[in-house]
């Protein structure tokens, strides 16, 4: 330490402290090291899906290194995309998802506007109730719903079991509560003066909603739409319980039930199907990641 003190006035640098930037560099290196490990853990299954989907059946059953594709081929994709059955699943899933997103947004935007701004008798209780509904899992409801559908058929003659469009009625129970919750949060964050200004400008309630609230809360609406789409695209239990004929299946159930025939696994096609089934949410996620994350965290940060 003595050699550091050149003159009496010069500040002394205690030698035993490492430099701050060096500490930080090491912290950074460790962070990257562990992040790489976790990224491997998190990305292995989807990457393995992709690897397998590019292999021929012969290569899959060969005793070669499973982590490498020696003879890449698109034959699995060609086989699936020309298979009528698979295209029907895809169409069913797409139709259901689009309808569910629409229905969800209409119901939840109207309700959220009413709950966040207009207030009526019992509206506070309802807001809490909406959140509670979100916590009721599908696994609790599918059995009574199954029975209710049978009873509904006896009453009206309308068969709800084994139709893909039944899901348009069912999925909103999963998407609407959280979408409403997100929208209540976004609407509540709009300053009250904005609707008062609109009121003075002569806008009615409906105009305030369509001309002010919806455009201003657009990020929230996009987040809620992404959420509803993801939920309805990924839903597995309801279609598994309520549909059986292959023309009525939705994509996830279709892939799981029709591509696995008994003990005969065509892994190349199964992985291709799984990848194609995962593609729409992944594509949306890739382009709208910030909205996706905003929707996910909305419950915690706005609630």
């Amino acid at each position, binding site marked *: 330490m003595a050699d550091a003190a050149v003159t009496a006035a010069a500040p002394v640098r205690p030698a035993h402290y490492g430099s701050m930037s060096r500490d930080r560099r090491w912290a950074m290196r460790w962070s990257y090291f562990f992040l790489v490990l976790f990224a491997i853990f998190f990305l292995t299954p989807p990457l393995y899906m992709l690897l397998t989907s590019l292999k021929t059946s012969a290569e899959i059953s060969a005793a070669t290194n499973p982590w490498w594709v020696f003879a890449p081929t698109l034959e699995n994709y060609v086989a699936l995309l020309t298979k009528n059955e698979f295209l029907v699943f895809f169409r069913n899933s797409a139709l259901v998802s689009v309808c569910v997103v629409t229905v969800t947004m209409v119901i939840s935007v109207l309700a959220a506007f009413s709950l966040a701004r207009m207030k009526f008798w019992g509206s506070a209780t309802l807001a809490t109730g909406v959140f509670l509904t979100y916590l009721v899992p599908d696994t609790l409801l599918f059995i009574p719903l199954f029975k209710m559908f049978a009873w509904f058929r006896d009453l009206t003659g309308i068969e709800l079991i084994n139709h893909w469009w039944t899901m348009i009625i069912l999925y909103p129970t999963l998407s609407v509560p959280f979408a409403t919750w997100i929208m209540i949060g976004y609407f509540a964050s709009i*300053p009250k003066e904005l609707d*008062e*200004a609109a009121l*003075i400008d*002569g*806008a009615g309630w409906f105009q305030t909603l369509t001309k002010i609230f919806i455009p201003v809360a657009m990020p929230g609406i996009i987040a809620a739409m992404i959420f509803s789409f993801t939920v309805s695209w990924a839903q597995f239990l309801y279609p598994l319980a309520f549909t059986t004929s292959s023309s009525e299946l939705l994509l996830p159930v279709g892939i799981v039930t029709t591509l696995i025939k008994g003990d005969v696994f065509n892994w190349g096609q199964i992985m291709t199907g799984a990848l194609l089934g995962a593609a729409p949410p992944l594509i949306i996620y890739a382009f709208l990641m910030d909205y996706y994350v905003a929707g996910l965290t909305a419950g915690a940060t706005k609630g």
Partner: protein
Amino acid sequence: MAQVTLRKVVKKYDEVPAVRGVDLDIADKEFIVLVGPSGCGKSTTLRMIAGLEEITGGDIAIGGNIVNDVPPKDRDIAMVFQNYALYPHMNVYENMSFGLKLKKTPKAEIDKRVRLAAGILDITELLDRKPKALSGGQRQRVAMGRAIVRDPKVFLFDEPLSNLDAKLRVQMRTEIKKVHQKVRTTTVYVTHDQVEAMTLADRVVVMNQGLIEQVGTPNDLYHSPATKFVAGFIGSPAMNFIPCQVEQAAGALRIRLTDALSFPVPAERTARYTPYVGKPSLVLGLRPEHIIETRPHIEPNQHDFDMKIDVVEPMGMETLVYFTVNGVEVCGRVNPNAGAAAAKTMKLRADLSNMHLIDDTTGKVL
């Protein structure tokens, strides 16, 4: 013609009164400022005039028509909010024209009015911008523009400058005054800042605890406050309030602050204060500018006194000195060159011709 009249206006929130009976006549083209501490009911009063709050009792009339039950859009008013409440997804032009568009005003007319208002406020080149891309002062102008475009009977301002920094606030204050001189619309303006109230108003309404304390021109309020509240609220630094007694000695009145300190009452006030000789709980109200240093070349008189200074605050053009009398901190304004220093004794002079005698139990200025 757009007078605004309030008659015994009452507002209660679940039986908790916010406004407890306000009577006010606002003349056509007048600029009225409602001022008071937070929670005094000034904003509620404004919002009742706007129609954003239902009134619990009394009547509100705009232009001679009672509007108690008229929705805001039909009251022909325009309001500028504290946070401007600009529609964030619309550009300036759309913000200003939104109300007219909802009223189905012809496009050409809208365009004419928007450009006229933009010209008045000097925001013509901002018309395509979104509020996000505007500075605080520009947003303020747009908010005013939105009000002017509607050509309403009454402008309502709800603390429009409190989100701006100090310098901009002074600038926009002048701006608002200029705009009012141009468009001459009846204006009700709410603020908690007494300087804003004084500088802008034709008449100032001081409110406290849901009631009007005093209505008057800025000078009236400053020089002849009706109550201790008004006396203390208007003016900065605030008026000094020192407990005192009125004594009669040898045919003259004296104000006694402590055993050692008393001043003769000016002759013209003797008759006014005689009834209060020996009465308890009186307070002397004296503004800081009426406690000054004695100058060497001026004759000493009976209002001079020596005082040990506690704290000195140089302000540049003047220096504030603080000292303690009768257990109360008192502020005086002295010349910066008078040599004031903490813990030093200084010769001061009280100008009692501008004094106020206040009954501390009723709060009335006597």
